């Protein structure tokens, strides 16, 4: 075989499979391949894979674009943003958590309208804060439960309202402590709880604007963090855990609610 020029590298074989070799080099590479049937078979298979990929997924181009995506591709009106926040969350939404019926927010667009975007942001931020601090071994909290009075007074002062750390011992969870987090518009409090097995849950508390209505429990899931969240009077609450199943977390959320509304 007439092999001339530079040796053929793997990148060139890949380029051959993609039909992207410069014309001047193609003959060299093909001569090289002719002398090596196994390599020729291999890179031919690569070329075949390209065709299979295009054949398999090409039909997607001809599918009608779902109306929801079309709306997202045009500049958003307010309700669109609301839907977008729901999209961001990639979550299921439970209304009336105790009843336990669920809708997948994105597969059931009707569900989006029922959820205020601000509340979904609450769930997402809470989940992020949980994911950040719950795995901490040495510094899970800023102020420990041994200084609970100071902790609660401090957080109340910064949030501008009386914040309380509910007592969850009847569900086996004891207070580890808490911290102050940046939030929008104002600071946010996070209380951390832990049971004897080291499983953790965090309660995220933020001040809500005066126009926020109270809500039922809602359920969200962000990655592996489950969240029950609700708005009650001037505070928004979100109870998050990556260690607890939904039902268990719901029981805990109910206890939190009862503790805060004796």
């Amino acid at each position, binding site marked *: 075989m007439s092999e001339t020029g530079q040796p053929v590298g793997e990148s060139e074989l*890949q380029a051959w499979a993609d039909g992207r070799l410069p014309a001047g080099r193609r003959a060299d590479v093909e001569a090289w391949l002719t002398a090596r049937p196994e390599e020729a*078979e291999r890179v031919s298979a690569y070329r*075949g894979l390209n065709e299979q990929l295009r*054949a398999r*997924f090409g039909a997607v181009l001809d599918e009608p674009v779902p109306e929801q*995506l*079309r709306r*997202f591709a045009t500049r958003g009106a307010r309700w669109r943003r609301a839907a977008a926040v729901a999209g961001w969350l990639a979550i299921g939404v439970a209304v009336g958590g105790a009843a336990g019926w669920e809708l997948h927010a994105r597969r059931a667009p009707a569900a989006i309208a029922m959820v205020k975007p601000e509340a979904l942001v609450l769930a997402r931020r809470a989940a992020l804060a949980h994911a950040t601090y719950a795995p901490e071994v040495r510094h899970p909290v800023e102020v420990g439960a041994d200084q609970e009075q100071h902790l609660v007074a401090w957080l109340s002062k910064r949030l501008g309202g009386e914040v309380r750390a509910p007592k969850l011992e009847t569900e086996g969870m004891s207070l580890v402590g808490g911290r102050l987090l940046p939030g929008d518009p104002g600071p946010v409090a996070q209380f951390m709880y832990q049971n004897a097995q080291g499983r953790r849950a965090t309660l995220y508390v933020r001040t809500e604007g005066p126009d926020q209505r109270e809500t039922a429990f809602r359920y969200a899931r962000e990655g592996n963090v489950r969240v029950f969240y609700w708005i009650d009077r001037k505070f928004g609450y979100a109870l998050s855990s990556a260690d607890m199943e939904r039902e268990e977390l719901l029981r805990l959320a109910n206890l939190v609610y009862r503790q805060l509304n004796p």
Partner: protein
Amino acid sequence: MSDGPSLVALIPRLRRYARALVGDRAAADDLVQDTLERAWAKLHLFRQGTDLRAWLFTVMHNVHVNQVRAARPTDALEDEMPELAQRAVQGDALLVRDLERALAALPAAQREVLLLVALEDLSYEETANVLGIPIGTVMSRLARAREKLRVLMTGKGGTKLQVVK
């Protein structure tokens, strides 16, 4: 703004790539939706005169890395959702399934490179830009992705690859 219509026109391309990237149809459209939303938020970062499609792939890549690729155990809810019918465009349904299964078995970083090059026909350089990696990495991931796919499809499933002469 004139960006609306051009974004709309690119949706089918985004959907195709997303479908191949994440497999599941609903999850793919979720990814497209997140990408569009993110694109609006980041539109000020898009440089006029550059390729909007490549930029959207970049946005999608980032969204995918941040969200989909994060460890996410399957929610029980997901299992209960009925599977949407997948339209087989090739006669050989087994081959189609094998291709998708083999794709899913690739590491996401390799799958992205392969799909951007082979399915979306981006140049190696564009692919490197979209993913924020050196072009040498594009080539090595491409080589590894293809070889793994070839082995998976010819070896395990016993389905002979269609060799294009």
